[in-house]
């Protein structure tokens, strides 16, 4: 993945996102800032899924659980009067990492479709737990009275936008460094041929678990950002359909590229909004597009772009 074409895509994307707010103010409609902010948040979540899906080859159908855990951590802290932003984000990352550690410890004993099912099972368990706990709103959800205090006013759409953008850029850059590091090489090799890696002497379970924990932590961070934007958390964040959507974002954008999933998130959310304005049958149309995507080879948008460049 040292593919220069992919890197160029990443820089281009970051460039566009950096100047987008200027465009929004020119049109005079600050609503779009919020829309793109949400797209970037899901981009971060999709990137975290790509780390384990595209690089480690682990298909998880329960990734949305970390969005929920990160979001609920912020909401619960806020509920008890803790407003410090660093505490919020720190706790969200830590709790999600811990949850990923526990879930990973159990789930990584399996692989393939079993892994898929068990990650789904854990996500369902957390979903039912969230519904049952009345103290934190249960099914009604939990309101967050104020965004995390970071010394910046996160209620201001422009401020939140750049905070999320900075996080996205940071995660992207660190992600690139991670997958091109020794650790990343091992993970990618494990995806292609785990038994060979074991034969060579690598403790592959440890590497997979580490990747899984990092992935969960980053997704939890995205959840905390989402909680700040919506100022509300509810178990609907943990429904398994959400995990399916994250999967679609990664595939549609191009898995194994890190920047692809961000593009996938943007396109998917855009599509969802446009379609739901036209018809109530928009899930069916999304399903049909997904089918087409799989049948034509799931290289995703990035695959499409980079392949054209290589040909040229």
């Amino acid at each position, binding site marked *: 993945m040292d593919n220069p074409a992919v890197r160029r895509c990443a820089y281009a994307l970051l460039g566009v996102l950096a100047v987008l707010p200027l465009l929004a103010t020119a*049109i005079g409609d600050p609503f779009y800032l919020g*829309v793109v902010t949400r797209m970037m948040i899901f981009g971060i979540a999709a990137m975290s899924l790509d780390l384990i899906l595209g690089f480690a080859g682990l298909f998880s159908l329960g990734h949305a659980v970390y969005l929920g855990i990160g979001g609920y951590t912020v909401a619960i802290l806020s509920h008890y009067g803790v407003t410090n932003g660093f505490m919020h984000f720190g706790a969200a990352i830590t709790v999600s990492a811990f949850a990923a550690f526990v879930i990973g410890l159990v789930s990584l004993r399996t692989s393939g479709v079993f892994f898929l099912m068990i990650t789904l099972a854990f996500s369902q368990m957390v979903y039912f737990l969230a*519904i049952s706990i009345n103290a934190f709103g*249960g099914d009604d*959800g939990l309101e967050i009275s104020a965004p995390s205090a970071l010394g910046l006013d996160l209620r201001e759409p422009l401020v939140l936008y750049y905070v999320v953008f900075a996080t996205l850029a940071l995660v992207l850059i660190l992600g690139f460094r991670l997958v091109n590091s020794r650790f990343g090489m091992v993970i990618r090799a494990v995806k292609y041929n785990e038994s060979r890696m074991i034969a060579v002497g690598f403790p592959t379970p440890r590497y997979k678990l580490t990747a899984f924990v990092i992935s969960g932590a980053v997704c939890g961070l995205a959840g905390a950002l989402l909680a700040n934007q*919506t100022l*509300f958390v509810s178990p609907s964040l943990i429904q398994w359909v959400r995990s399916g959507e994250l999967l679609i974002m990664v595939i549609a954008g191009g898995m194994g590229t890190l920047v692809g999933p961000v593009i996938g998130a943007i396109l998917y959310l855009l599509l969802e909004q446009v379609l*739901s*304005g036209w018809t109530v*049958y928009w899930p069916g149309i999304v399903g049909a597009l997904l089918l087409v995507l799989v049948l034509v080879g799931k290289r995703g948008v990035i695959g499409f772009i980079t392949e054209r460049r290589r040909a040229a």
Partner: protein
Amino acid sequence: MKWLKASLFGAAASLALALPANAADKITLGLMTSLSGTQAILGVEIRDGIQLAIDQLGGKVGGLPVKLVIEDDQGKTDVARQLADKFVKSDKVDAAIGFLASNLMLAVYRPLVDAKMITISSNPGPSQIAGKDCSPYFFSTSWQGDNWAEAMGAYLQKKGVQNIYLMAPNYAAGKDVLTGFKRFYKGTIAGETYTPLTQLDFSAELSQIKATNPSAVFAFYPGGLGIQFIKQYAQAGLKDKLTLYTAYSIDQTTLPAIGDDALGMILTTSWAADLDNPTNKKFVQGFQAKYNRLPAPYAVHAYDTIMLLDSAVKAVGGKIEDKPALLAALRNAKIDSPRGEIRLNTNHFPIQTFYQAKVVKGADGKPSIKIEDVALKDYSDAYAAECPMK
């Protein structure tokens, strides 16, 4: 593309606001509800009720032409929040209406009322919004969430029924409903069971009921869960031995699916098609003609949202830009509802009468809902006292 149009309109609107305020020449309403997902059937009822009202008023509310923006929140709280922002910042609607589940209402409540947006619920009535978190900008034309259960509790208390077995799903609404029931029912309780929300098969609970041998059963199972529970209740042979009282389970969205198994069951409701008043006749006939099916109470509540706006906008003579006057007009409105004339309480929730009804064989041979008795007369809710507005 919708957004381009919306943003151009937004730009134009900003320009317009810069000029001295003229009388509005139309009213823009933002309808947000769940039109996809498991709750879609109710979202469709709400949308249909609102559309019918607008049609019957000739496309005008209070004399002003209506622009209706319809959005689907997909049952997701973060999408709902984004749509609330869209209504406020982009579409710049005059009122946000509709909504569906309580968690979605709670997710958009603060953003909407803090932006001083007139918000009218056609369905959800969370207790916080009726009580301590009430706002002068929020109005409800439906109910407070506990109402139908409170009515059932009152009815059973009045009838002197004792030894009741209670059942509900294990989530916030389930617990609230049973609490509401017990607010009015003071008799003995034979048992109280909460079932997992996604449970498909109730045979274990039904066997338990048989073993406990109560005098009656009150169950809260909305929508699809209700269909399953009632069918299984009848199939277990309990229907004729042990009266089943329900609230929120049997209405026109579920009755066709339950069929004759529902005959003889007793429920509470705020409206039924046989209520005898001219507005109701016009409503039912219009609904059937337009949508080829009978309406459920959810459509009535939504219809009344438009009726409320209609009466308030007329009262201010179309000058909706005069917010304080419009708010006062909404607060004091007399809604010409298929339920009869409805007024709002101090917390902006409707004061209405709740009825006990029974499922009987209709003239066409199909089961239908027939009102028999009054359960709670001119009642609003239990939380109004906590609301600081007077």
